């Protein structure tokens, strides 16, 4: 792999560690603020009242701060020192090629996978040393992890709500609301194991929101979800963001990320290659073009001529 120092080669102006304090993540922050003008001002005023210790000056508080995250699996380094700062009220996309370490990173952020080093703070609470407080603020949709699928949809929502410490009445009303919002009403009484992949995803998504967390971390939320449902989900998420919530999603559907996210980080080989507002990272191109460029460009498809002479 690459070492941490040269890890962030192409996008030269990225040195997030140094400036740190003033509106940290967004790189030429001053310039870039205006690109997302509608959101910051009204939002953080209404929805984020207490604003603890962290950031006194900047307009938006940091809801997720990741520093120096490293994870090794035997002889491969899956995540090689990732730093992220995500502001409250942002719709943050994490993109990267297959095997770039997106899921590993998100698993560590959500407290499901223990990092080898580095810290993760969710709204001031460390995920690994103060898990109870941190996880209350955190809604999680993991990728490729099972659900308790011998429960019915209703039972699973109820189970998640109760384990999150909600009282039964709240769980019931919220379950009903979520089921309506995600179009799951007809499926609630069936076993989750009999659901289609998309339905399962929607149910898991609903379960991740039941405790009204401050931050939603969703790993591939649109995978195998039909276009109507994903439009629906995007709608729900955008309203949540407008109300001051923060969403972090990973995907390799560039168009979708470009459309819905206001900030983005490109992760390749376990390191952040570019990070900032969508317009910064895109630098005038489409996110897809920029991404292919950052991720090392296209491989010329040579040496597979046999594929073009069909066998029968």
């Amino acid at each position, binding site marked *: 792999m690459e070492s941490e120092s040269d890890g962030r080669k192409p996008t030269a102006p990225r040195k997030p560690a140094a400036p740190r304090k003033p509106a940290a993540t967004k790189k030429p922050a001053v310039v870039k603020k205006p690109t997302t003008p509608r959101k910051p001002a009204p939002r953080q005023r209404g929805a984020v009242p207490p604003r603890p210790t962290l950031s006194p000056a900047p307009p938006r508080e940091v809801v997720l701060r990741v520093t120096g995250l490293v994870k090794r699996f035997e002889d491969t380094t899956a995540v090689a020192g990732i730093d992220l700062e995500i502001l409250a009220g942002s719709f943050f996309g994490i993109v990267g090629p297959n095997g770039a370490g997106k899921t590993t990173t998100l698993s560590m952020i959500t407290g499901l996978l223990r990092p080898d080093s580095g810290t993760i703070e969710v709204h001031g609470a460390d995920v690994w040393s103060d898990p109870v407080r941190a996880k209350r603020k955190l809604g999680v949709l993991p990728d490729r992890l099972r659900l308790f699928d011998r429960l019915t949809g209703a039972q699973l929502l109820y189970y998640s709500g*109760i384990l999150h410490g909600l009282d039964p009445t709240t769980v019931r009303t919220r379950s009903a609301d979520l089921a309506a919002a995600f179009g799951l009403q007809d499926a609630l009484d069936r076993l989750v194991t009999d659901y289609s992949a998309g339905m399962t995803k929607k149910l898991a998504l609903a379960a991740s929101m039941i405790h009204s967390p401050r931050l939603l971390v969703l790993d591939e939320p649109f995978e195998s979800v039909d276009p109507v449902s994903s439009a629906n989900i995007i709608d729900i998420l955008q309203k949540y963001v407008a109300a001051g919530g923060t969403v972090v999603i990973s995907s390799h559907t560039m168009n979708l990320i470009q459309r819905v996210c206001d900030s983005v980080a490109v992760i390749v080989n376990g390191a952040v290659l570019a990070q900032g507002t969508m317009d910064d990272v895109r630098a005038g191109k489409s996110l897809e073009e920029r991404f292919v460029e950052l991720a090392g460009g296209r491989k010329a498809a040579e040496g597979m001529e046999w594929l073009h002479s069909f066998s029968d």
Partner: protein
Amino acid sequence: MVAQFLRLKLTLFANSFRRSPWQVIGLILSITYGAATAVFVVGGLLALRFFDVELAGSAVVMLGAVVFLGFTLLPLTLGIDDTLDPRRFALFGIPTSRLAANLAIAALVSVPAAVIVAIALGQIATWSRGALPTLVSIGSAVLIVATAVLSARITTSVASFLLATRRARDVSGIAGIVLLVGLAPVVILLAGVDWNRYGLTVLASVAEVVIWTPLGAAWGAPATAALGDGQAAGAQLAIAVGWVGILWLVWRALVGRMLTTPQRQAHAKSYAGLGWFDVFPRTPTGAIAARSLTYWFRDSRYNTSLLVIPLIPVFMVIALVIGGLPLQQLALLPVPVMCLFLGWAVHNDVAFDNTAIWLHLSTSTLGRADRWGRAVPVLVVGVPLVLIGSFVSAWIFGDLAVVASLIGVSTCILFSGLGLSSVMSAMFPYPAVRPGDSPFAQPQGTGSPAGPIQAISFFTIVLLALPALVAGAMGLIYSPLWHFVALGYGVVVGLVVLLVGLSWGGRVYDRRTSELLAFAMRN
């Protein structure tokens, strides 16, 4: 290609020993069952060599018909996990006839096939009384093996084809177990009948008809030849050959059909309301208990345990009765044995959740809630079992004084088993069958080895209950007062181990939750 298929089948067979304890126990049972059947039947066939032709003929025909029936019907209930399902080879583009032939040949590598080969060879021995019968019986042997294997292949595929829904899969294993248990007494009864004296005439007249059907033709042809009726023997062989041909055509058509038919869609059942979640307290502990209990009834991995556990003492009692022990004393056996397996059954409970355990992690569920929640279903089933079962056993035994001992021993076994399991499942999970998976998809074992963990948890339970057992035995032999020693020891030690186990297990769980998830992700 045949060699490849055979090698695949052999590998699969070897790998089947690396599964979960219940499956390995099941496999060993089935091999023992198969070996016992083979020895029993082949022994009979060898003995029939020395009986006159008519008697031996009817016996072999009837026996053969039963064997064929077994090969045809048993897979309907047992053969659902078809490791060589034709559909698995759909994407390789093998011509249908070749695939059908290869699969049929590969099916020869299996316990039932080994049994039928042994039986087919045995019947050659029965008819080794002259050139013609021997020759005919060699032909018959080939036909017998072909008929049995093809019949089994066809019904296995039909079963997995038609019963491919999740629910059918969940139920069929249970049906198979029940059938096996139903068969055991029949086998014992049949073994006890004095064939020399009774039913011979009935047998002969039934055999006369069966010999002309596909069920009996291959078995009867050598007998007919031994009687000197070469023409009739030829006709019977022709029937047998024709039947094999028909089976082959059916099998080939079935393979062709299966390769081009999509899976049947399950009709999902609807469950109104929250079920057990409405019954238990609305706390994390209550929710986990409700979830766990729901799984005991809904997940085939759990309810197989529920079904096997009462059967183990049944088998033990049958075996011991045959061994000559009086039924009265054996009445003391079932309750403690069931408690033993009940407490032990949950020693790998966390691994059963597989990666679904992430939900507990991301809600920072306390170990205490998790441990207690998982223990509740066992207690819900186990405590009434101990109380009611002890009284029933004592009543059958004929001395109510033993109730104290029975309750003591059983409580000790159940509670300390549960306490130990609470620690073991958090500390040493080992790979389990994945939720809803067929055994074919069984993960290769990584991490802690299953065998030692199973053995350690099992024998520690026995060791802890040993003093109660000894006290109970003293009660039977010396003075009934000892029964109360057993009761006192059992309840106190059981409770202490249970409480210590639950709280220790809870602490281990709290410390290791993310490791437990990491473990589940590796498997």
